[in-house]
């Protein structure tokens, strides 16, 4: 759900830009206190994996597709603060190098997929952690739905489309896309834990 240039007006992209920049500045401060040099490669490969996985659109119903966001995957494996930085790096590169997500919409895209999806998804995961894969699945689904809802609100605030029209439509399609997000995230988290690939999330917990 990368918002392109032209969908948001100035007040919306400035507001979301300020919110995202503030959150990222705080996330950088948090991780600076805890991040060890040896954990840096793990952040690098997680960013690389999420970037690659985001390229693989999977078909859902009705001639529509979706792709992994990866917010909960990053948050569960590396903690939410690191995850928000990882998501921001991915979204910035996608916008600058691949024209995926507008430069003016970067703040909104980071807010939706790098802040809201990360922290809401991580919160749900912590509540349901004891249910393991099921908890990861539900957290991932919720992260997609909330990111989609935030995107709808931004489009409505920008007066691109009324909320009553865009919110149900966004939630409808993303309810299916979220199932894909949940299945992929639960599978990858399970594989990482069974193969003992320690990505040391404990050090950057919220």
């Amino acid at each position, binding site marked *: 759900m990368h918002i392109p240039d032209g969908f948001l007006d100035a007040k919306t992209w400035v507001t979301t830009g300020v919110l995202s920049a503030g959150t990222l500045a705080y996330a950088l401060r948090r991780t600076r206190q805890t991040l060890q040099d040896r954990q840096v490669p793990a952040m690098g*490969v997680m960013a690389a994996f999420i*970037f*690659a996985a985001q390229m693989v659109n999977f078909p859902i119903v009705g001639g529509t597709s979706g792709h992994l966001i990866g917010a909960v995957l990053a948050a569960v494996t590396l903690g939410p603060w690191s995850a928000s930085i990882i998501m921001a*790096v991915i979204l910035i*590169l996608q916008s600058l190098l*691949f*024209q995926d997500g507008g430069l003016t919409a970067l703040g909104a895209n980071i807010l939706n997929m790098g802040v809201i999806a990360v922290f809401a998804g991580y919160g749900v995961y912590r509540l349901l952690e004891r249910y393991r894969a099921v908890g990861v699945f539900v957290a991932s689904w919720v992260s997609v739905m909330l990111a989609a809802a935030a995107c709808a609100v931004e489009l409505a605030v920008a007066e691109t489309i009324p909320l009553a029209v*865009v919110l149900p439509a966004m939630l409808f399609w993303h309810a299916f896309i979220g199932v894909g997000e949940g299945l992929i995230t639960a599978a990858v988290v399970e594989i990482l834990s069974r193969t003992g690939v320690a990505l040391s999330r404990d050090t950057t917990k919220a």
Partner: protein
Amino acid sequence: MDKKILAVLLVALAVAVALSPFASSNPDGLERVAEDKGFLEQGEGKEVITAPIPDYLLPGVENERLATAAAGFVGTLVTFGVMYGVGRLVAGRKAGARQTSP
């Protein structure tokens, strides 16, 4: 680098090169809503910058699947490199702070 960490990077490259060329080309959720609700054209031609690898197709590669795979390969490595660099900067600053305070 830890072998298991390296394995994750290789898996990421494999996903980018082998799976992305076969990704669904159907509109994603937001594009679909923009199409259905008639605001898709608001984004047309509004790009603020011209990206070097637009739409994940490496310029100069004729075959679309190869162009996607190449873009995926480049993008995955660049993402790893940038995240690694940013991570080192963030982790490094803390080490610097430690040296100044006993």
